[in-house]
């Protein structure tokens, strides 16, 4: 057994600690697997965000190891040796190496699952794991400092709870996102990681490592002037990192101007972001199935339906793909997503205005219900206010459908008129 690992316990104890780190990593990514499985970047971000549980475990393990070290005569021997700070750091480095290995295993696991689900990979974004590794070092060193300064192993649970609570404070936006290394709930399709907001927590974390070592024992980083300079640098890093850390999670990502799309189908063609291609096949099939009934009613459909976040720069002759909830990540989509897509034949400014376009929303709703009734997906229930119209005269329905589809396509929302007795 290597001397570096000796303070962590025997071989089985070390294996158990690795197992615990890996287990909490899995616990922190597993509940949202259905959300990140459809996007490689989100899977990467989620794996890196596992620090929120793995960090506390690393801190607890380091606290136990350093309390043991402090209680032994070896701590004095270490302090008298030539490379005192390095010898002192070795158990913490060992804990950090275990935690980092577990984190990388979780990240590789998440991204592999996404890849296996047929999602393209974006290795250029893999650098976001680095800040997560530095944060793990900071969390482990805080545990080490508490364990060594107090010599009390029973403080470990309190350190764990403390490190976990700091993450909560960031989640509640009471402090900057200094301890946030990932875990976004959106797919990140059409977005990229912004460099500085993602790296700043790492700068702060490096500062925390230095300050924690200095706080553990004065001799370590306060003995000579050169060491005091290191502490000064650490303090500076913490201040700079803290002040320039993003205030909210959204600042970690920015929108791409023109995200690449992947398309399928012909009547009409359906395109989704290239990064989240899982729903494409099923969405295309369902859209083509329902589109037939609109075409039969004499509606002129757009040639293409395209997924996007913004109206600006969009071709006004293209429809908009609208997926419900987490269906961006799923291989199968609901009929409602296909209907929502078909009843949004153009990107309109009004949809993103201050006041929601209530009339257009009502019209899309009725149009969608008509389409689903016609396609045999839905039957109007007894108490529905539009039941009479939906079961009424077909020619009048189709005339309204053609008219309202043209109005939705030209964003002429103010011209929309609901059928008599409906809406």
């Amino acid at each position, binding site marked *: 057994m290597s001397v570096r690992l000796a303070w962590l316990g025997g071989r089985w104890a070390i294996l158990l600690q690795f197992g615990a780190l890996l287990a*909490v990593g899995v616990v922190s990514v597993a509940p949202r697997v259905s959300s990140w499985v459809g996007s490689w970047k989100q899977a990467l971000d989620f794996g890196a965000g596992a620090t929120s549980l793995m960090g506390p475990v690393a801190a607890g393990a380091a606290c136990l190891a350093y309390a043991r070290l402090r209680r032994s005569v070896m701590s004095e021997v270490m302090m008298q040796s030539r490379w005192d700070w390095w010898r002192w750091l070795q158990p913490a480095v060992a804990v950090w190496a275990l935690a980092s290995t577990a984190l990388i295993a979780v990240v590789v696991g998440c991204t592999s699952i996404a890849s296996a689900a047929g999602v393209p990979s974006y290795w250029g974004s893999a650098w976001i794991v680095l800040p997560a590794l530095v944060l793990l070092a900071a969390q482990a060193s805080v545990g080490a400092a508490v364990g060594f300064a107090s010599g009390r192993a029973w403080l470990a649970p309190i350190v*764990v709870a403390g490190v976990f609570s700091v993450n909560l404070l960031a989640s509640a936006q009471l402090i900057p996102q200094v301890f946030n290394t990932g875990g*976004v709930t959106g797919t990140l399709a059409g977005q990229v990681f912004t460099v500085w907001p993602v790296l700043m927590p790492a700068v702060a974390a490096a500062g925390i490592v230095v300050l924690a070592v200095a706080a553990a024992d004065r001799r370590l980083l306060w003995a000579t002037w050169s060491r005091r300079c290191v502490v000064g640098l650490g303090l500076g890093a913490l201040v700079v990192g803290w002040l320039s850390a993003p205030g909210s999670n959204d600042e970690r990502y920015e929108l791409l101007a023109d995200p690449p799309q992947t398309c399928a189908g012909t009547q009409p063609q359906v395109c989704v972001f290239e990064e989240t291609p899982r729903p494409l096949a099923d969405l295309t099939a369902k859209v083509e199935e329902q589109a037939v009934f609109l075409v039969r009613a004499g509606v002129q459909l757009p040639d293409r339906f395209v997924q996007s976040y913004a109206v600006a720069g969009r071709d006004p002759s293209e429809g908009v793909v609208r997926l419900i909830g987490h269906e961006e990540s799923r291989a199968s989509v609901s009929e409602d997503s296909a209907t929502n897509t078909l009843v949004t034949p153009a990107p309109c400014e009004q949809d993103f205005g201050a006041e929601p376009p209530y009339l257009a929303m009502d019209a899309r709703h009725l149009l969608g219900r008509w389409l689903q009734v016609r396609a045999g997906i839905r039957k109007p229930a007894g108490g529905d206010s539009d039941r009479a119209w939906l079961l009424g005269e077909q020619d009048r329905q189709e005339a309204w459908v053609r008219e309202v589809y043209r109005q939705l396509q030209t964003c002429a929302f103010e011209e929309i008129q609901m059928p008599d007795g409906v809406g």
Partner: protein
Amino acid sequence: MAWDNRYVAVLRSWGLGVALGAGLVLAAASLLVGDVYVDLPMLRDQIRILHVFPGLAALVLPVPLVDRTPSLTLMTMRSPAVLSLLRLGGVVLASLPVVAALLLVGWTLPAALVVIGFVGGAAVVCSLVGLWYWAPMLGLLVVWLQWGSREQAFTAGWLWLVADLAALVVGGGAYVAVETARVRLRVRTAGTSSESRRPADTIRP
């Protein structure tokens, strides 16, 4: 009054003072935070930050359940079962401020008593893995936040009460049994000649 200093010394060496202090801090925090919602990556939905406190209590409060002076325990004249029961009782007492705070913010009694149920669960883990008990408790915290803590906290009925008390009785009972057996075993092996074990210093027969 020598005797009451002695009790204070025992309370401190068991860590009950720290546990009670932590209980009061958690209780005060749960009264202060109000209705803040947080979005934790590992959870599907947003949660009220208040729901974190029973989980944090399960992490922090059971500290006294782990024996910090095992060699001293071997020398005591009291039954080891009584000592374990006293530790468990002390931790339950230390968790009462958190229960009271949760009642004050509108949780029903069965929901607030989940803290005591967690103590029971932590007790059995403590007897198995000692000062590493917080690792499984961290997992329990996530499970609790993910599935246990929704609007039920305001409506929970007798089923929760039964579960809480059952966790305390079963977990606590297992803890007392394991700790007692451990002390008895060490005392027994200490009296006999043992090559492999370090003889424990004991005056028990």
